[in-house]
C-alpha cells in the first residue's frame, strides 16, 4: 500500500496534469472570446465520455460502441430539469395546456407524464445524472459479462442498444421531444445559463468536473484494480484461473465509464442549451471512440486532447471549407491512426522519452559508440508502456 501511494503521481504525471490545467484554465480563457470558449466547453463535455472509454476499452479491453447511450441519459436528465423550469405556466400561456413543455402540447398531451415529475427537483436530477446511467450499464453488463459474452459481440450489442434508444426517443416524441430534442432551455434555478457570464462560470465548472473525473480515473488505474483490468484485457482466462471473478471487474469499469459519460452529457446540455437524439445514437458513439483512439487509448489525458483536437478541427475545417471538410476529417483520422497507433499520447510519450534520453546522454560522458545502441535503448524504454494486445 505504501509503495502504491508513493507511485500514485509520478513526476511526469504531475507535469502532464499541470500542462492540461495551464491550457484549460489560463491559456484558453485568456486567448479565446466567450463564443469560442463556450465551444471548448462543449468539446470538453465529449472528453468525459472519452476518458471513460480509455478505462473501459484501452485498459479493460471492452470496446463499447454505445457510450452515446449514457451521454444521452445524462444529457436528457439535465435537459428535462431545465425544460420543466422553462415551462412555467406563465411562459407557456399560449399553449392549450399551459405549464407543460411545449412539445408535449404539440403532441396533444394534457398532463405531465409521471416520469417527468421527479425532474422538478434539482437534487433528484443530479442523482439521476450520476446513477441512472451506471444502473442501466450494470444491467447490460451483468447480462453480458456474467454469461461471458465479450469482444465483438459486446460491441455490437452496445451499438444495437444505442440504435434502439434513438428510435425510442424519436418515436415517443410526446414524452421526449422526438427528433427535435429538448430545446430552448433558459435558466437553472432562476440563473440565466445563456448569458456570457454564465457561460464563463459553466466553462470553469466543466473544467473542474473534468479534473475531478480525471482524478477518479487516475486512482482507478493506479490501484490494484487498474492492474487487474490490464491483466484481464491481455489474458482473461489466466486471471480467472487465479481465482478472480473477472466479470465483476468488467462490470465495474463499464459502469464507471457510463457514469463519466453521463456527467459529460449533463455538461453538454448546460453548455449548449439543448439535447437531441442525434447525440445518443450510433454516430456520436463511434465519434467518442475516435476521440479516444486519436488521443491515445491508454492515456486519460490523451483522451481529453483527442476530444479537443478532433472537435476543434471539425469546427475550423467546416468553417473554412463547408463543402469539403468531411473529406479532410476522414484523411486526418486515417493519417493519425496509421502514423501513431497509440494516438497523440503515444507520440507525446515517445518525444518525452527521447528528450529524457538526450538529457541523460548529455549529462553522462559522451558515448559515441553507435546510433543503433541509442535506438535500442529507446525501444527498451518505450516497451515499458504496455501496448494492448490486438483483438
Amino acid at each position, binding site marked *: 500500500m505504501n509503495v502504491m501511494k508513493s507511485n500514485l503521481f509520478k513526476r511526469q504525471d504531475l507535469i502532464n496534469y499541470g500542462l492540461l490545467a495551464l491550457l484549460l484554465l489560463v491559456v484558453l480563457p485568456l486567448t479565446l*472570446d466567450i*463564443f469560442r470558449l*463556450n*465551444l471548448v466547453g*462543449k468539446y470538453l463535455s465529449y472528453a468525459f465520455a472519452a476518458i471513460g472509454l480509455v478505462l473501459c476499452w484501452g485498459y479493460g479491453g471492452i470496446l463499447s460502441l454505445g457510450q452515446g447511450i449514457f451521454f444521452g441519459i445524462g444529457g436528457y436528465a439535465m435537459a428535462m430539469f431545465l425544460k420543466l423550469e422553462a415551462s412555467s405556466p406563465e411562459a407557456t400561456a*399560449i399553449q*392549450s395546456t399551459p405549464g407543460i413543455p411545449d*412539445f408535449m402540447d*404539440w*403532441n*396533444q398531451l394534457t398532463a405531465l407524464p409521471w416520469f417527468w415529475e421527479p425532474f422538478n427537483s434539482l437534487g433528484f436530477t443530479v442523482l439521476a445524472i450520476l446513477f441512472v446511467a451506471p444502473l442501466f450499464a450494470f444491467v447490460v453488463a451483468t447480462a453480458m459479462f456474467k454469461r461471458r459474452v465479450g469482444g465483438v459481440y459486446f460491441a455490437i450489442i452496445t451499438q444495437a442498444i444505442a440504435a434502439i434508444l434513438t*428510435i425510442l426517443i*424519436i*418515436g415517443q*416524441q410526446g414524452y421526449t421531444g*422526438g*427528433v*427535435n*430534442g429538448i*430545446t*430552448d*432551455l*433558459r435558466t437553472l434555478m432562476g440563473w440565466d445559463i*445563456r448569458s456570457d457570464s454564465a457561460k464563463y462560470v459553466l466553462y470553469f465548472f466543466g473544467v473542474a468536473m473534468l479534473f475531478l473525473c480525471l482524478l477518479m480515473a487516475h486512482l482507478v488505474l493506479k490501484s490494484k484494480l487498474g492492474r487487474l483490468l490490464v491483466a484481464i484485457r491481455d489474458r482473461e482466462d489466466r486471471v480467472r484461473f487465479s481465482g478472480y471473478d473477472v466479470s465483476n471487474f468488467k462490470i465495474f469499469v463499464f459502469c464507471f465509464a457510463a457514469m463519466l459519460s453521463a456527467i459529460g452529457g449533463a455538461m453538454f446540455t448546460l453548455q*449548449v*442549451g*439543448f439535447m*437531441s437524439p*442525434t*447525440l445518443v445514437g450510433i454516430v456520436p458513439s463511434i465519434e467518442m471512440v475516435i476521440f479516444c483512439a486519436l488521443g491515445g487509448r491508454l492515456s486519460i489525458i490523451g483522451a481529453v486532447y483527442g476530444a479537443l483536437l478532433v472537435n476543434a478541427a471539425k*469546427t475550423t475545417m*467546416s*468553417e473554412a*471549407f*463547408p*463543402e469539403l*471538410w*468531411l473529406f479532410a476529417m476522414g484523411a486526418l483520422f486515417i493519417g493519425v491512426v496509421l502514423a501513431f497507433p497509440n494516438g497523440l499520447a503515444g507520440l507525446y510519450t515517445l518525444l518525452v522519452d527521447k528528450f529524457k534520453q538526450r538529457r541523460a546522454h548529455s549529462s553522462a560522458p559522451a558515448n559515441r559508440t553507435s546510433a543503433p545502441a541509442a535506438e535500442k535503448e529507446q525501444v527498451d524504454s518505450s516497451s515499458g508502456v504496455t501496448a494492448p494486445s490486438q483483438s
Partner: protein
Amino acid sequence: MRMRDKKATTHSPLRRRLLKGFLALQAAVVLGNASIASAEEVNTTGLAVTEDTVKVGILHSITGTMAISETGSVQAEKLAIDQINAMGGVLGRQIEYIQEDGASDWPTFAEKSRKLLVNDKVAAVFGCWTSASRKAVLPVFEQYNGMLYYPTFYEGLEESPNVIYTGQEATQQILEGLDWASREKGAKTFYLLGSDYIWPRTSNKIARKHIENKLGAKVLGEEYYPLGHTQFNSVINKIKLRKPDVVFISVVGGSNVAFYKQLKAAGIDMTQEKPLFVTISVTEDEILGIGGENIDGIYASMKYFQSLPNDNNQAFVKAFKEKYGDDIVIGDVTQAAYLGPWLWKAAVEKAGSFDIDKVRAASPGIELTTAPEGYVRIHENHHLWSKTRIGKAHTDGQYEVVYESSDLIEPNPFPEGYQ
C-alpha cells in the same frame, strides 16, 4: 467557402452606367453615390456593414442526409443574392455571404448560428430546413437578436419575432388540398400516412379535424413510420383492403423512394386515382430520386411548382438553369428560399436601416410582386400570405398545375379549432 464578390463594387462611373443600362429591364433600385447613407446611419447595432458591403449568413446542411434537400435552397439563396448585387445591392451595399454547414446535425446548426451572429455579426441569416434545426437555432436567434429567413413548409405552432417564415405553415398547405379533393373528386374517406416526427403529426392532426369537422368525411386510418423507413408493404395492403378515396401522405426524405416504388410494385396504378394520392411532401426535388415513372398520377398540394406559367417564374427558372445547368429542378422549398434575400432587401430598404429591430418593424406588409410563385406579402405573424396550388405529377418529373386557390390564403400558425 467564403465568396467575396466585389465585381460590382467598383465606383467607376462608366461601369456603373453600363450596369445600369444592362439592367434597365429589372432595375428597381440602382442607387447613385449621393443617396447612399453612411454605415453609421444604417447600422447602429454593430452589424457587419461597411460603406459598400453588408454580410449575411447562409446556414444549410451541405453534408449529411439533409444535403440532398437543402442544396436547392442554398442555390436559390445564392442566385437571389447575385441578382440583388447585380442590381446595385441593398442600400447601395453589395451583399457578401458567409456560408456555414449545418451538417444535418442539430447541435452543429446551433453552433454555426451562434458563430454567424456573434463572430461574424451578419445582418441576416438565410437557412435551416428541418423543424429540428430551426428549433435548435431559435433560442440563439432570440438571444442575440438575429433575423432568420426560414424556407420550408412546416407545422406552424410558432411565431418568433426573429424568424420570417417564407414557406407555408400547415393550414395554408393542407386545408385547400383537402377541400379540393372533397369538392372536385368527391372524396368521402381518407387515409393519413406520414413519417414519424412533428411536422407530419401536426399536419395530420389538422387534416383529421378538418376532414371530420368541416368536410363531414371519415378518416379510415392514421399511421406513422420512422424517418428512413423503407418497408411499406403492410400499409399498402391495408390501403388495398380498406379502399379509402384519398391517401393523404406526408412521408419525407428517402422513405418516399421505397414507398412509391412499392405502391407501383403492388399493382396500384396511381393514374387511376383509386385511391387518389395527395402528397404534401414530394416536390420536384424528391421526384428526381423517386423517378417520374413511379409517381405518375399523384397530386401534390403546395404553393409552388416549377411549371407555373407566370412571367416571374419563367424568368426565375431561366436564371436558375443558366446558373446551375439545364438538368436542375426547382421545388417548393427552393422557391421559398429564393424569396428570403428579396424579402430582406425590401424590408431593409423600407426601414432605411440594417438594424434588426427596424427590419422587423418594417417587415409586416412587405410585398413582393416579382416572386416566382406570383405575389406574396408578409403577415403580422411573420408568415407569408400565399396561394396554394394542386399539381399532378407526370412521368417527366414535373407537376402540371390543375388548381389554384382564388385568393391569397392567410397564414395561421396557431389555428383555432385545430389544436
